[in-house]
């Protein structure tokens, strides 16, 4: 194996995307994704058993496509990396079993890696090595976390997280209230462009007196969802039309305001000059704009990977695996465990 530019195959099956990525060092060679999102739409959210079944159907064809795209054979792979958590356990196990068997069959090491750390490190594929330290904001349908990434990406300290719903989940739930399809985030983003973000002053979670001290970098979005539901019901009860675009724009503003305010506060208070945003919600256009404005005003360099590297994918897993190989980190034991809530402080097992 070339330890300065190892070929690493990454496997991601923590939610509803089956991702296989291949990297050589920092270089992205393939990033194949099969999504089961359409199968979940009629249930209004991700159904774990449906996701697990879809992973098993999709994973072997995705392996083949990734090798074809990278122009290599599985024999050419130096190491396997796989998401070991956090995520849906039944879904994770499909990827983990595949990774362990590939490791044995090919005679190469396997790394069970942290999903949240992958979302931060993936930016290295697009923008080069991360400065030390970096603050990561991970926002998706399953996560809303602020992470301090230090010591050459070997120490990951959780600064804060959502106390209830994830940001993407809040978008989905509000979209459902407004009669928009699942997943709701892209719909809210699109419809909000026609609306006034200041039309309705929806609550900003954990912004009350005392919250700033107690929960400096945490989030809460369940109250927002309740406030929107109440507001929409009141309109309907009064026989008035619901101004969908204004509601969408105002909700989006409330979510994005809190996310970016906490991100900038974390950078400033921890003396960190670089921020990375990852996760599916990073595709939200208002989040990107507001984060750019606020980071620029605070003198923080903002890095956001392109959309296909923000949503769950195999390349991010491979990117972290490549990092571990290059840092000389020992591989995971073949009996490493998979659980839904592994601590974020560890980047591999």
């Amino acid at each position, binding site marked *: 194996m070339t330890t300065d530019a190892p070929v690493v195959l990454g496997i991601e099956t923590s939610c509803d995307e089956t991702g296989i990525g291949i990297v050589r060092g920092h270089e992205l060679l393939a990033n194949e994704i099969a999504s089961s999102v359409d199968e979940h739409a*009629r*249930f*209004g959210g991700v*159904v774990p*058993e*449906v996701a*697990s*079944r879809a*992973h*098993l*159907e999709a*994973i*072997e064809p995705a*392996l*083949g496509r990734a090798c074809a795209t990278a122009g290599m054979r*599985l*024999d050419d792979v130096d190491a396997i990396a796989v998401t070991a958590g956090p995520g849906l*356990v*039944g879904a994770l*196990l*499909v*990827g*983990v*079993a*595949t*990774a*362990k*068997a*590939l*490791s*044995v*069959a*090919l005679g190469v090491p*396997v790394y069970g890696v942290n999903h949240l750390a992958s979302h931060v490190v993936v930016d290295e594929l697009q923008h080069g090595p991360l400065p030390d330290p970096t603050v990561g904001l991970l926002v998706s349908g399953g996560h809303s976390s602020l992470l301090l990434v230090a010591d050459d990406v070997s120490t990951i300290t959780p600064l804060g997280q959502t106390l209830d719903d994830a940001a993407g989940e809040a978008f989905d739930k509000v979209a*459902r209230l407004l009669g928009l399809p699942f997943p709701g985030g892209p719909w809210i983003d699109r419809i909000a462009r026609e609306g006034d973000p200041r039309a309705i002053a929806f609550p900003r979670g954990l912004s009350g007196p005392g919250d700033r001290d107690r929960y400096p970098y945490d989030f809460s979005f369940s109250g927002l969802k309740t406030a929107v539901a109440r507001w929409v019901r009141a309109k309907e009860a009064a026989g008035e039309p619901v101004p969908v675009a204004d509601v969408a724009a105002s909700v989006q503003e409330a979510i994005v305001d809190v996310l970016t305010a906490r991100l900038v506060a974390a950078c400033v208070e921890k003396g960190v000059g670089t921020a990375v945003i990852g996760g599916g919600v990073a595709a939200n256009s208002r989040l990107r704009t507001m984060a750019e404005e606020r980071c620029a005003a605070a003198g923080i360099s903002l890095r956001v990977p392109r959309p296909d590297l923000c949503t769950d994918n195999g390349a991010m897993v491979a990117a972290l695996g490549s990092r571990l190989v290059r840092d000389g980190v020992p591989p995971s*034991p*073949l*009996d*490493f*465990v*998979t659980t839904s809530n592994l601590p974020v402080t560890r980047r591999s097992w």
Partner: protein
Amino acid sequence: MILGIDTSSALTSVAVVDGDLVVAEGGHLDPRRHAEVIGPLLADVVGRIDRGDVTSVACGVGPGPYTGLRVGIASALALGAAWGVPVLGVCSLDAVAAAELAEHPGSPVTVAVDARRSEVYWARYDGSGLRVEGPRVGPADGVPADVVGRHPTGAWVAWRVQALLAAGAVPPSGEVPLDAHGEDSGATANALAGATLLPPRPLYLRRPDAVASS
């Protein structure tokens, strides 16, 4: 040589067979740790053979509790992809029936494995080993009395594949004789009678528990 894997019960089982011989075998009994133990089991078994001698990978496709079942099938698919050999499925209950028949020739038998929620997956076989009913999932008290509860093993799965190949069975094409949820239906009965190799996809027998939103 055929490498066989079965994870359709509490037993995670891996074996390599060559004719009547078990060349290497390993197993671990734990209903919740298939994905943890499959790695060391595979490493041990593969470490004792020349991987170039493996001509196909056999896997039990259940029925069985889904999470564990998927571990074995995903592993089999990965081995097949890595080594460039076919991955062939058989009903896991058929493997148990074949093992029983070898010990008690001519005796009809019913095979069952735990399906949780007070239910079992089961199938019934005549004295020649032909599956005459099932696989089905249902309450444990509805199963015929001559039930056998032993765990499907990688070795018996591999032997079933070996026997079917020897009898001229052809590996399944891309066509899958089951619907998307692996449900049994009249059209699939022949494919499921036990005389056919199955694609490496789980026999779920139940749809996912989920309610469509209005």
